[in-house]
């Protein structure tokens, strides 16, 4: 009977998913067929081997829904993700450029201090000189005088601004000096301040620890109380069950006694009549 039905039954038996009668019937089937029993034992052996696969210990990371992305750490494929990907991206771009250059017959050369760029092997057209030397000189002169004027104006503005700032700075230095003279802090005052801060910090830490401990205690207490309630409830239910059993038993006994009395009375009356 090596078929699908048997496979399902074997699995159900292997995992205890059968009623007592079904179990008996299946065990009988195995007795009749040693081959099936062998298969069952082999699968049982596999299950025992699987039991060696223990749970691994792992520490759960802190999860914050609002910062869910921080939980994801780049834990895998560092090679492909952070090294290979950029390399392939650059390589792909270069290949694209080379193909484009080849198709358009791109030319690039440096000669006589000139950089020439062109396509289809055509000579690069240069801009022809259309101005004479004196004209260029005049233009340069004009441009230089304009620049000089602008520079002078800017320098003058800057100088005025610096003067204003220097005056303001002097004023503020004077004011700081005056204030410093008023508020000199002594060493004792500093020490006192630090001692106070230290005491305050210690108190805060102590309060925090005390509060945390109390909270923990409360939580544990609540947990155990709940667990205790659960056990009590269970116990109460069990007791109720036992009590109702006893009452039922007692009722049965009374009933039986009555019946026995009735039978006895009937027997006695029968005998006395005869």
């Amino acid at each position, binding site marked *: 009977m090596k078929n*699908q039905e048997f*496979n*399902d039954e074997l699995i159900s038996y292997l995992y205890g*998913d059968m009623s007592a009668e079904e179990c008996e019937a299946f065990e009988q089937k195995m007795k009749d067929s040693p081959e099936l029993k062998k298969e069952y034992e082999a699968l049982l052996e*596999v299950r025992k081997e699987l039991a*060696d696969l223990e749970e691994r210990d*792992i520490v759960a990371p802190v999860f914050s829904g609002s910062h869910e992305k921080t939980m994801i750490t780049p834990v*895998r494929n560092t*090679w492909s993700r952070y090294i290979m990907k950029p390399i392939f991206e650059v390589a792909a771009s270069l290949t694209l450029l080379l193909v484009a250059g080849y198709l358009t017959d791109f030319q690039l050369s440096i000669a006589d201090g000139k950089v020439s760029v062109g396509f289809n092997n055509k000579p690069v057209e240069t801009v022809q000189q259309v101005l004479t030397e004196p004209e260029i000189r005049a233009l340069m002169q004009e441009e230089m005088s304009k620049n000089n004027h602008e520079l002078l104006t800017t320098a003058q503005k800057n100088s005025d601004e610096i003067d204003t700032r220097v005056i303001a700075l002097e004023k503020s230095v004077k004011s700081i000096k005056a204030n410093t003279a008023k508020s000199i802090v002594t060493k004792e005052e500093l020490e006192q301040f630090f001692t106070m801060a230290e005491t305050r910090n210690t108190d805060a830490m102590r309060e925090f620890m005390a509060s945390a401990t109390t909270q923990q205690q409360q939580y544990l207490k609540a*947990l155990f109380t709940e667990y205790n309630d659960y056990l009590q409830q269970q116990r109460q239910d069990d007791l109720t069950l036992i009590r109702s059993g006893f009452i039922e038993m007692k009722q049965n006994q009374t009933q039986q006694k009555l019946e026995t009395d009735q039978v006895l009375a009937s027997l006695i009356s029968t005998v006395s009549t005869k």
Partner: protein
Amino acid sequence: MSEVLEKIAFMHSNNLIEKAIAGDQRAFDKLVGLWFKKIYNFSWKYFANHDLAMEATQQTFIVAYKGIRKLRDVDSFRFWLYKIALNHCREEDRRTKRRSWFSIHGLEETKNYSSVIGNPEVEIQKKEKAELIAGYLTKLPGEQKEVIIMKEFEGMKFREIAEALNTSENTVKSRLYYGLNALRKLMENSEMKN
């Protein structure tokens, strides 16, 4: 003792789930603390790889955080969470297979987890055996692997697995049967080689 406390905590997690559904951030944080190990172990058995398991676990909780308000039934939280984890494992598996030719290390385990406790030799042997078995699991077809993990390690009922996978109980049993047999063959082959 810690296992007992963990069980008690799981017993009382319904309250936390209710609060998390109502939008309580701290309750959700506690749920993450409670379920992280379980979901990580589920994913680790799926991949036999710490990094992939961590990624799938983290993604599971991010999706759970976004969707928990839509959860109507507190009791279905467990299956709902496993279902999210399973979907992420499948997705991650597909992604990993697609780029496996591209990656140098592929599914290589990083081995940066739990420290060796007790007798180092015994612990190392146990760890190696666990890795070997997890390695066998990764060689199984996805649908068989999922069913084995859910039944064998998460202790889910056939009905629950069928519900989570949107299939029938008989199909679940059938996948489990073929999966266990495939594992047996893998183990036998490995023994023969050794």
